[in-house]
């Protein structure tokens, strides 16, 4: 039952969100050859709520994000966003554009996710033209609003990405995503590269935007403090499987699964003594390819952390 009328951004999310979730993922699975990257993952995100997906590199977080926005096709399971099945490709350009308006993503790497020939102004303007079709003066006013919202000054707004710092580029990417006025924004490590003082501004900004527009977030992060600040619910992913799922406070204060406990214990804090307990296991989990290691170096069930980065 695809909704063919374009929803009024923000308000529609608030009204519809009372019942149906903005995002519902059921039994999601993704295989790359023999590797099962995502294995039976299910969760739902109500309107104007935030869900965090935590886990280490290779755990499948980014693959889930890419499937939600349609950059990867699931091997199995269902994704429903804004009441529409998304596990299948869009049927037309119009369909794809509507999906793009509903769900936006801000990627981790601000160095590769912007067009090097477009200034922030061009970048945002393009989205406004494509998704809203507004006249130039209205677009200009909205661009000023959006750049102000994310804290880009006049010079930065007119600069090409190569003249901007990582933090500034990421703010351009966030402004671009918000320009579509999505109902769901996927933040894939979007604040990880920002300076602490800027990160706080962006986290406050994201909370404000959620309050004002009713947008929902899927926050993919390795930073548990950021997760605590922004996410209502958290799922912990390991080797593609959900090992823990609950309210963020409960997951972080009283982690049940040993893996969650280890993640939590790895966060530096005053009096923190990092443990080398895992070093041997980590080392042997990655034997040189084509090399027969002495069996002592590869204990059964060695942790598979430190798997190759995505």
């Amino acid at each position: 039952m695809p909704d063919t009328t374009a929803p009024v951004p923000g308000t529609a999310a608030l009204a519809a969100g009372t019942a149906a979730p903005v995002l519902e993922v059921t039994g999601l699975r993704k295989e790359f050859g023999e590797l099962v990257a995502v294995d039976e993952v299910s969760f739902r995100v109500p309107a104007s709520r935030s869900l965090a997906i935590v886990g280490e590199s290779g755990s499948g977080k980014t693959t889930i994000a890419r499937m939600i926005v349609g950059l990867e096709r699931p091997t199995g399971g269902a994704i429903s966003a804004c009441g529409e099945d998304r596990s299948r490709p869009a049927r037309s350009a119009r369909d794809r554009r509507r999906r793009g308006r509903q769900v936006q993503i801000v990627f981790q790497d601000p160095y590769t996710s912007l067009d090097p020939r477009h200034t922030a102004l061009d970048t945002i303007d393009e989205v406004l033209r494509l998704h809203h079709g507004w006249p130039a003066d209205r677009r200009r006013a909205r661009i000023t609003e959006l750049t102000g919202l994310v804290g880009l000054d006049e010079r930065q707004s007119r600069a090409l990405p190569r003249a901007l710092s990582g933090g500034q580029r990421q703010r351009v990417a966030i402004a671009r995503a918000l320009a579509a006025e999505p109902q769901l924004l996927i933040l894939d490590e979007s604040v990880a590269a920002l300076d602490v003082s800027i990160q706080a501004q962006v986290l406050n900004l994201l909370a404000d935007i959620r309050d004002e527009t009713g947008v929902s977030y899927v926050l993919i992060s390795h930073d548990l403090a950021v997760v605590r600040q922004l996410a209502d619910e958290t799922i912990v992913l390991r080797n593609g499987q959900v090992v823990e799922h609950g309210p963020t406070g409960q997951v972080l204060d009283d982690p049940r699964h040993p893996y969650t406990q280890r993640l939590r214990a790895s966060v530096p804090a005053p009096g923190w003594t990092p443990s080398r307990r895992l070093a041997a296991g980590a080392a042997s989990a990655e034997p040189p390819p084509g090399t027969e290691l002495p069996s002592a170096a590869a204990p059964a069930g060695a942790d598979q952390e430190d798997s190759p980065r995505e």
Partner: protein
Amino acid sequence: MSHGTGGENTAGPLLEVAGLTVRLAVRGVRRAVLRDVGLTVRPGEALGLVGESGSGKSMTARAIDRLLPRGAEVTGTIRFGGRDIGALGGAELRGYRSHVAMIFQDPRAHVNPVRRIGDFMTEALRTNLGVTGAEAQRRATDMLAQVGVGGGPARLRQYPHELSGGMLQRVMIAAALLTEPQLLLADEPTTALDVTTQAEVVAILAELRRDFGLAMVFITHDLELAAAICDRTAVMYAGQIVEVAASARLHDDPLHPYTAALAAARPDITATRPRLRAIPGRPLSAFEAPPAECAFAPRCAHARDECRAAVPDLVTLDGGLSRCARAAELRGRLGEEADADA
């Protein structure tokens, strides 16, 4: 040892940086990227160097390792074991660098992808210290085992792309330690790693520091990480050091408003805050900083007219240092800021 590093100076500081100012051509204009930086590291001590982008923390490490870009104009002195390293060249500079090792945030950007691990690990031993190939390989294998990279000599035949980021960073640490340096300059070495891998790498560094009596300058944007693993921490802003204090004290009892603001801006893993105390504006790079006033004043909740009248001096306060005109007056009040709404 090719030169007498510190034989007669073992009681004094291992590294002593004083009045270090570095100017670089930024868009055709020569501007300061470091301004009057001073710090000391004692043998075996770990000093944290914390700051946001553009603060000059990496530039400081590069200056110490004599890795500044061509054309950099340097004033001030850097002494290592009592010896001024500013004028070293050729073999002497290579000798110095075998005492001061450096590891970086992104190991992949600092290795030649088509050279085998064993080849680049043993290069300094073979070319600078005249160790034979077989002996260098044996030492490399031993050192890899110490940083938790098993697999024996077979490892040395691998290429960088065959390893994950965490494993490659361990290899880089092992390579850095092969020349038995006295000082390790670690520039965000764990930033690109997963948290559990970070914990391991940090634990490995702590263990090696103990075993080798190694001093360390640990550069990070993460105040909590620096506080957790360093004896003392220096905080940099806009190319200057604004605070130096015992790490244990830095978070709860900061001496400079910037340190306090930085701690308060971080989200708290133990509680959701109604609102983060963001610092207004953005961090200034050194070359943007006004020449004759406190660089942090425009973002500082405690700024007064006096802060805009001159660059404050670094003053001693309660065993630490603070570059704040109102440091004495604000003493003891800044720590509450961080906990105000926790």
